[in-house]
């Protein structure tokens, strides 16, 4: 009898924990925590190296390597997009070498033949002196979880590209190089979704800001957010990697916490932008929003 009561209690508690979570959310949640922890030095990498920032070229190379392995671990074929570009002007060029960087990306191919690509990504570099937990390990973790779930879908009517951009903190150099490359390759890019700062929600309202969205993306996000009970604020301008794609005429949307609305991390670009400040419930909620949008784009 006593055993039966204990068993019943277990079942009840267990169902409480899983209630309200979509299948896989709990799994992707722990995955996201590990990713943010390792990118910010909260946990050491497999090699034992502790990444306290992702700013110098050797730190960014280590982070890139880790992201490449992480994508491979979820069955994706991770690739490097290496670029070398000029500095901001001729005078700086005459004083310094060209700038080198590496974007990490993987294609999640369409299951039904398609030449359309939906690109989603986040920058993985951080400001010097900052562990960059919310800016932008949070965005990387979001895209990573979305990529994993997309890859598990049975049907995808479009190709998806998950990309981790280098050097956003240096005038979006990495994403600009990627956008340029996509353009040169003549890829049919359906839309570009960039995430930056998705780990702060002090007022607990789960609200998301969508910056300069293309009209069709705005309506899709709004409809899905409404279904999920997520308030949406539309903002203008270009504050992150979305700038690179907007400038080249791609249909773009940027997803972030309430930056303009005032509910955002106060630790941005500071040594205090650490793992413990990340609101993983908010990250999970925003991940779900982006995933549901991607799923819809995969199905339609």
């Amino acid at each position, binding site marked *: 009898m006593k055993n039966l009561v204990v068993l019943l209690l277990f079942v009840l508690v267990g169902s409480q924990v899983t209630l309200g979570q979509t299948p896989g959310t709990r799994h992707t949640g722990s995955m996201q925590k590990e990713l943010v922890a390792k990118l910010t030095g909260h946990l050491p990498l497999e090699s034992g190296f502790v990444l306290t920032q992702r700013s110098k070229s050797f730190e960014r190379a280590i982070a890139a390597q880790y992201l490449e392995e992480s994508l491979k671990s979820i069955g994706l074929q991770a690739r490097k997009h290496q670029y070398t570009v*000029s*500095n901001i002007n001729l005078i700086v060029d005459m004083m310094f070498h060209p700038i080198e960087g590496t974007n990490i990306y993987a294609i999640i191919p369409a299951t039904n033949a398609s030449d359309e690509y939906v690109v989603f990504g986040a920058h993985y570099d951080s*400001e010097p002196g900052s562990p960059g937990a919310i800016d932008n390990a949070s965005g990387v973790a979001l895209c990573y979880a979305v990529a994993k779930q997309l890859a598990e879908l049975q049907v995808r009517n479009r190709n998806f590209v998950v990309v981790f951009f280098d050097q956003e903190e240096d005038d979006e150099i990495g994403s600009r190089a990627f956008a340029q490359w996509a353009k040169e390759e003549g890829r049919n890019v359906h839309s570009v979704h960039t995430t930056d700062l998705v780990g702060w929600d002090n007022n607990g309202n789960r609200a998301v800001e969508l910056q300069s969205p293309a009209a069709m993306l705005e309506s899709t996000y709004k409809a899905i957010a409404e279904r999920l009970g997520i308030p949406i604020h539309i903002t203008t301008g270009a504050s992150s990697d979305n700038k690179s794609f907007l400038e080249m005429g791609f249909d773009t949307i940027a997803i972030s916490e309430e930056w303009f609305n005032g509910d955002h991390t106060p630790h941005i670009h500071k040594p205090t932008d650490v793992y413990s400040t990340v609101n993983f419930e908010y990250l999970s909620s925003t991940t779900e929003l982006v995933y549901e949008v991607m799923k819809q784009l995969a199905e339609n």
Partner: protein
Amino acid sequence: MKIQSYITPKHLVLLSFTPIFVKGFEYLLIGNTHPLLVATIIGLPLAVLIWFKQSIWALKIWSVLLIGYGTIRLLLSTTLLFVNKGVEAAIQDQLTPSYFIWTISFLALGIFLYRRRRQLV
């Protein structure tokens, strides 16, 4: 035959033009023609004047340019080392000991060419 009869001081002066052209080609490889253009506009006439006309005047200009280049690099890089904020990480990254060794070399080369310009050409 002694090696000195092949390598004259003038050869060494000519060698001092290579870094600026190397930089030009470094950028040409990534599709940026401007640094090579600068190298050609500034370096080529001076190199030609020094080589064919033994122009001390051209060597004087070249050495002053090298001193100026070294000085700007030195001032800029030392400032950047102390002013961390707002400087691109990609630039900070390049402020290595080798950057300073090159900078001092340009400065020293400029001063050497300036002081020995009469003996060299």
